[in-house]
């Protein structure tokens, strides 16, 4: 009669058991100790044979666990540096536990629920769902809000996910980028610093390795796939993101356009409500960061808007209108 196969242990039971075992050890466990004793591995461990599959399983499990923010550490034995067989693994409790002073009031919990809801579509939805789980584990219930909100930030650009991965791993990316006003895309090699949504558009703030400076790249102007290379770069300081945002704000403050709006039009209502717009009769002074994006928006208003200045924007809008008229004539 064939030997009955070892009972199958569900993946989550194996992962859970591994976390518990590594949390419980002070000095760490060697790989052999883990594979031969921990639930889910021990059933498949062979004392005499080859455990290569099981070892690969363990490598993947470690990645999955670390991805949840669990600080799974590797310790080298003194005097045996570089020897994989004597490496020990553990999860130090101090680095695992949420610090005691990190607590959230009901009001804060409500707000964090809302912040997670922002991502309910797409790329960061798995992360925000997990963050909410951990938040709920603290036992604080959210308040019922007076006014119901359903905020949503979208990530439609295929480039977002590879760029996010590259950011996490500090790997250089390569992509073709179509700069406004140019007819063909140029190849770029970039060290990503941050993904920023500014005025509803996603852009990559990064260091252009050929231009030797930081640049902003609109995600929707990235043509074709983003390649995450295996070349790494030195991480930027955490405040680099805030610096980039301040820089965008400075550009916004600096750049203005003057337009004439048709009284009683949709353009009048909406453009007058744009942030920082100043108004004198039908003349509006608008702020912007990207001339092409503004040209796109203003062209969509058709005859409801006449651009007065700057000349380049005037031309860009006029060109769009004429091209559209021609293409549909």
């Amino acid at each position, binding site marked *: 009669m064939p030997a009955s196969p070892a009972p199958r242990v569900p993946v989550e039971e194996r992962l859970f058991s591994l976390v518990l075992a590594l949390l419980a050890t002070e000095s760490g466990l060697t790989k052999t100790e883990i594979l031969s004793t921990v639930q889910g591995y021990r059933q498949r461990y062979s004392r005499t044979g080859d455990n290569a599959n099981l070892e690969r399983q363990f490598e993947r499990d470690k990645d999955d666990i670390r991805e949840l923010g669990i600080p799974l550490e590797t310790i080298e034995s003194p005097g045996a540096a570089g020897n994989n067989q004597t490496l020990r693994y553990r999860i130090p409790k101090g680095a695992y536990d949420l610090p005691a002073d990190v607590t*959230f009031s009901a009001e804060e919990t409500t707000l964090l629920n809302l912040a997670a809801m922002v991502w309910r579509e797409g790329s960061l939805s798995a*992360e925000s769902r997990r963050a909410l789980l951990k938040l709920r584990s603290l036992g604080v219930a959210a308040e019922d809000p007076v006014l119901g909100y359903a905020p949503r930030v979208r990530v439609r650009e295929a480039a977002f996910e590879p760029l996010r991965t590259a950011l996490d791993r500090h790997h250089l990316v390569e992509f073709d980028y179509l700069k406004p006003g140019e007819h063909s895309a140029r190849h770029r090699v970039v060290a990503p610093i941050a993904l920023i949504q500014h005025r509803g558009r996603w852009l990559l703030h990064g260091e252009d390795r050929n231009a030797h400076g930081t640049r902003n790249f609109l995600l929707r102007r990235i043509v074709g796939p983003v390649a995450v290379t295996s070349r790494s770069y030195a991480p930027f300081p955490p405040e680099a993101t805030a610096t980039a945002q301040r820089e965008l704000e400075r550009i916004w403050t600096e750049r203005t356009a003057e337009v004439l709006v048709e009284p*009683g039009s*949709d353009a009048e209502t909406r453009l007058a409500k744009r942030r920082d717009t100043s108004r004198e009769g039908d003349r509006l002074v608008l702020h912007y960061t990207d001339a092409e994006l503004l040209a796109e928006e203003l062209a969509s208003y058709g005859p409801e808007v006449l651009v007065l200045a700057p000349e380049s924007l005037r031309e860009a809008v006029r060109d769009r*209108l004429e091209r559209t008229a021609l293409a549909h004539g």
Partner: protein
Amino acid sequence: MAERPRPLHAQDKLAFLLSLVPFLMDHDRISVSETARHFGVPEEQIRDAVRLIAVSGVPGETASYQHGDLFDIAWDDFEENDEIVLTNLVAIDDSPRFSAREAAALIAGLQYLSSLPEHGGRAAIASLMSKLARGASGEPTGVAIEASDVDEALALIRRSVELGVQLRFGYRGLRGEREERRVDPLRVESVDADWYLRGWDHGREAVRTFRLDRMSDLVVTDDPIRRRPADVALPDSLFEGSPDDLVVTVDVVPSALPLLADYIPEGSTTRAVGDRVRVTVRVSHYHGLKRLITGLAGLATVVEPPDARRTVAEWARAGAARYGREGER
């Protein structure tokens, strides 16, 4: 908002187990139903998790998972009364930290929401963000969203909900017609930089969606509302198709296809025509279409029907004509 339950990956299940244990530890005795409510999951998911926790633990001294090395529960209470009482604890005594990505997602969400009127101002948000950063196992950077500029309309909407009274405001639609609307506010929604009010429109006797930047002269009236959020089923999607929608064929540059995503019905197919993609879009009227297409000048062209082409051409031509009249400068 009601969210559909999703199938969980092993990694999510692990996060759930690690979050559930500390919650149960903080409650000497708690019912399955209350726990399910708190975590927002089906009761059966709680029972499955508790059954797994109850037989999990560490290999222990003997490396053979002896009784004292395992979690345990009061089985009678669990099986007969559907209540959870942990009677033996192993390895875990706190909630896990957030991963850097999880904290980054929540922090970016908070940035986006920081201008909403309810949240005790920017100082409270900043302190909440720093708490999240301290509660993360890595530096949460890399994603940022600009604060939405929601205008004073939100404060008034909130006030009318608080008082349970109707809101009156002027609303200018796409055709430029201004109408006075009376609305019972139901929910405020956003998509990126755009904010919307969904409410019961007394004139239309139906739910309508209003762009905040098209609303003007808001008045919190004394008239009580007739519909509460609980009385009205709000569809999940802001942009609902209707049987009266107009169907339009558009040729679009492949990289610009995501820009039309809101108008492309689910399950529709595309086909290549030269270096463009031919796609069918649905719009409620041509006023929106002509703006959309003119904004995408050079990227998208209407193929049919002829009156859609004509509407776009006329709009763009009228816009371009304004630049021919030098007297306007």
